[in-house]
């Protein structure tokens, strides 16, 4: 599980580049796996994660004293992932389940992992965002509400709806 809102501004003596390097080394894998669950493609996930770190560099370069939270990174990653999904759904470029399965390494292609990916792919973007931030990234409803700028009640409601939809997907059609 990922650390809860963790302030990454404790190393204020460092310049922007050194701080970004720390962020990259600490968060790249977790963030890339998180984004891959959204977009279902490791290469695109890597591109989006690079964008996130570049945005972090811009922020730290403009204001070196700014404390950056892990929540900021997840918010940036989520926004980019959702934008990517919306853009590609508009153009009809939605990956098939076979493509999604291909996007996982052989040793990662367990049934539960692929089922989870298929269930996530069926969620509405706002539900996907909330369930990923809570169930995958490990944030509380309160923290997600702060990250997304919506009320904790709205977060709980979206998580609840997402869970119900996912249950239907995971359990499959009744025999």
């Amino acid at each position, binding site marked *: *599980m990922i650390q809860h809102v963790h302030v990454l501004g404790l190393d204020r003596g460092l310049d922007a*580049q050194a701080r*970004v*390097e720390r962020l*990259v*080394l600490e968060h*790249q*894998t977790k*963030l*890339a*796996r998180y984004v*891959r669950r959204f977009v279902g493609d*490791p290469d695109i*996930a*890597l591109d989006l*994660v*690079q964008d996130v*770190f*570049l945005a972090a*560099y811009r922020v730290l370069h403009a204001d070196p004293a700014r404390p950056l939270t892990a929540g900021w990174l997840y918010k940036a990653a989520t926004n980019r992932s959702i934008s990517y999904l919306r853009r590609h759904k508009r153009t009809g470029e939605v990956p098939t389940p076979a493509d999604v399965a291909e996007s*996982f*390494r052989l*040793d*990662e292609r*367990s049934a*539960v*992992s692929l*089922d*989870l*990916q298929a*269930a996530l792919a069926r969620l509405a973007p706002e539900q996907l965002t909330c*369930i990923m931030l809570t*169930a*995958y990234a490990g944030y509380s409803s309160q923290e997600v509400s702060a990250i997304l700028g919506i009320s904790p009640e709205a977060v709980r*409601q979206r998580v*609840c*709806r997402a*869970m*119900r939809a*996912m*249950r239907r997907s*995971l*359990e499959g059609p009744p025999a």
Partner: protein
Amino acid sequence: MLGEATEAERAAYLAHAATCPRCEVDLDATRTLVCAAFTASQHGETWRASVRDEVFARIDRRSATWSSWITNGLAVAVALTLALNVALLLGAGRSWSSPSLATVLPATAAAAPAAAGVGPGLDAARACLDVAGCRDRLGLPAPQRPGIATGHAAAVSALGVFAATPLH
């Protein structure tokens, strides 16, 4: 659907779910199932991403782009300043070479370029414009030979009459 219910209906449902063992079990089962799927999937993830080199290459490219923009901007600013100065000098030169001004204010016409130290610079700028063929394109008059403009003023100055010329 829960999301389509009114606030009152939602509150009633939540009150009911808190006390109804069947609904509670149902909610718990959903949560357990989904959380178990997430946990199992995360434990099975072995992919390790490495974006450090790409990120820093992009940061370096961005810095290089910025410095090239700054360099280009400075170069353009210097070129514009030079062009503006040349244009201003040419305009001043034309004013000084006008017969009426040279007649009325011979002292000023002779002294100003020399005082400002622009005499040789002005000649050089004119020569540059001639070489570049800009004079025709700008619609400026053909270069005047010595004795007409600066030559006239210099001659007046040399005779020492510039200070005593009455302004009628």
